[in-house]
């Protein structure tokens, strides 16, 4: 799906928010020998480079997709460098600030294939949750995180019944893809309490 596209936030916040996704191409390389082994290798590379969130290891072994979230450009660079060197032949997509990814591509001598741009939200926008709540909920690409759960955890934090870290962890739970940036969520929650 459009997955990690349409993550909301200001440019400065998005500097700390990258999603890397690996995907098998149906009928091209998904049935190839060693395809699964290579997906697991990708999962390991992602895991070894400080992701703030990552799809479960169980999913690496069954899913056509592996994704992980990073909070800085250097870790993303290291993942891409290792993936290029490993030369596994599996498609890799990076979501983040366009200019930052282009810079990385130049440094690592990558020939970018294609881009999926976001034109944003349209239609009856009065139905949307407030912008700062959407910055949190839009980090789950399938929109499994409810706006009222964000409000619920804000109240618990204000009453000192839960820590910021625990609240971000709880909010991330419905996002099975591992693309919810818990560190960024903590920063947004700080502004909201």
């Amino acid at each position, binding site marked *: *799906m*459009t*997955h990690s*596209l*349409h*993550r909301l*936030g200001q440019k400065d916040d998005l500097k700390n*928010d990258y999603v890397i996704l690996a*995907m098998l*191409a*149906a009928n*091209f*390389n998904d049935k190839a*020998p*060693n395809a699964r082994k290579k997906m697991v290798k990708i999962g390991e590379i992602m895991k070894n480079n400080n992701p703030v969130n990552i799809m479960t290891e169980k999913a690496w072994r069954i899913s*056509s997709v592996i994704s992980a979230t990073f909070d800085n450009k250097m870790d993303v660079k290291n993942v*891409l460098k290792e*993936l290029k060197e490993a030369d596994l*032949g*599996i*498609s*890799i*997509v990076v979501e983040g*600030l*366009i*200019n930052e*990814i*282009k810079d990385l*591509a*130049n440094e690592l001598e*990558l*020939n*970018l*294939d*294609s*881009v*999926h*741009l*976001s*034109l*944003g*939200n*349209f*239609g*009856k*926008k009065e139905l*949307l*949750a407030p912008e700062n709540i*959407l910055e949190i*909920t*839009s980090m789950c690409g*399938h929109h*499994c995180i*409810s*706006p*009222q*759960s964000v409000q619920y955890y804000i109240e618990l934090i204000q009453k000192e019944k839960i820590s910021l870290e625990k609240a971000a962890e709880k909010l991330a*739970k*419905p996002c*099975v893809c591992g693309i919810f940036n818990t560190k960024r969520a903590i920063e947004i929650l700080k502004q909201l309490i």
Partner: protein
Amino acid sequence: MKIIEERCIGCGNCVIICPVQAIELVDNKAVIDKDICVECSVCYRNANCPTNAIKPSRLKWPRVVRNPFSDVISIHKLTGIPGRGTEEMKTNDITNRFKDGEIGFSIEIGRPGVGTFLKNVNYFTEQLTPLGVEYEEKSPVTALLKEDKLEIKEEIEDERVLSAIIEFKVPIEKVKQVLKIIKSVEVKIDTVYTVGVISKFKGGNEIPIKNVLKSEGFELRANAKINIGLGRKLIEDT
């Protein structure tokens, strides 16, 4: 989804977690509004119901169509992948689905977090189909269009889903017409939609469609998804 009333203790966990606000407490019991529920299973998997009162329903046609458009774990028969969409540009370095001079669109109705009736697809398809757009064959939405591709099949038009993605491509010359259609639906539709535009990079990692979008008054977000070109058609056994 259903709540077993005699088990429910009214803790409200499911009310908080429901992404489409379909659950409320009535006389201290959780009640699901079946018209609003999109069968996403988020409450079942994540509410931590202390009495296991939330149970999946055995869905019948046409209601069953709600699940693959809403449940992240559900794998659609056509796409073979989890989620509501297709591989789109994510594997384009291998599939070459979007070629030079072609522009892809993803119009996701109901996103972010509002939901939609499937009939809202018609606002777009009734204008896009006469334009001659090439719909993505593997898209679940394409599979549910009538034969003339002008409208969604009648028996499912009142089904509500978390989001439905119309995926198609056009030659770059038709982009302006598509953008006009996207704008025209804003005043008719009763929900929200997001729009994504897919383009191949040109030499020097340039994005050829950028200026067209800007000249038509569309504001580009600073972040995007980029296929970095590491995929290959075959993976040799090593």
